């Protein structure tokens, strides 16, 4: 399933909404999640999962081609953990 299919499906279920608005709705949801993480916040969606930000410490890396050492700065990366309900559903324990 891709973004446009999700939008189409939601539009089909909601014939009273303009397709353009459904698009804005779906985009607003994903945008809000990214924005939250960019601000260092966490997004917890019970049953589905949680998006959070993890810190990666600075380290000395190596250029695999030349073997040269390079300083890698500390950075923050997005992380997602599936919720219990979804994990259970993936394994056939429908709730």
């Amino acid at each position, binding site marked *: 399933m891709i*973004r446009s299919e999700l939008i189409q499906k939601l539009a089909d279920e909601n014939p009273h909404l303009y397709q353009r608005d459904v698009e804005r709705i*779906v985009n607003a*949801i994903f945008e809000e999640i990214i924005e*939250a993480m960019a601000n260092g916040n966490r997004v917890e969606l*019970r049953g*589905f999962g949680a998006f959070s930000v993890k810190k990666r410490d600075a380290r000395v890396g190596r250029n695999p081609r030349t073997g040269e050492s390079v300083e890698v700065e500390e*950075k923050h*990366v997005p992380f997602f953990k599936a919720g219990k309900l979804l994990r259970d559903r*993936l394994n056939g324990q429908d709730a």
Partner: protein
Amino acid sequence: MAGKTLTRMDLSEAVFREVGLSRNESAQLVERVLEMMSDALVEGEQVKISSFGTFSVRSKSARVGRNPKTGEEVPISPRRVLTFRPSHLMKDRVAAGNKA
């Protein structure tokens, strides 16, 4: 870093602000989006949201695990796990936004 936790309510609020729908309908739409994504994943489908990221389901075969406390061997049944791969855009924005 702020360290707040957002929930469905905040996503509904974002939808409410974006389009002139009631708060109730906004909340229902957020719920449906999460349900449709979950259902696709349960069906074994990949969910690919451009400029956000990709959720995929991986199958893991059975293996023998060990209780780290007692050292006892326990069978771990085959299972399906969900992985999320963030898009470059998400990684870049999260890295830039949290820069010290």
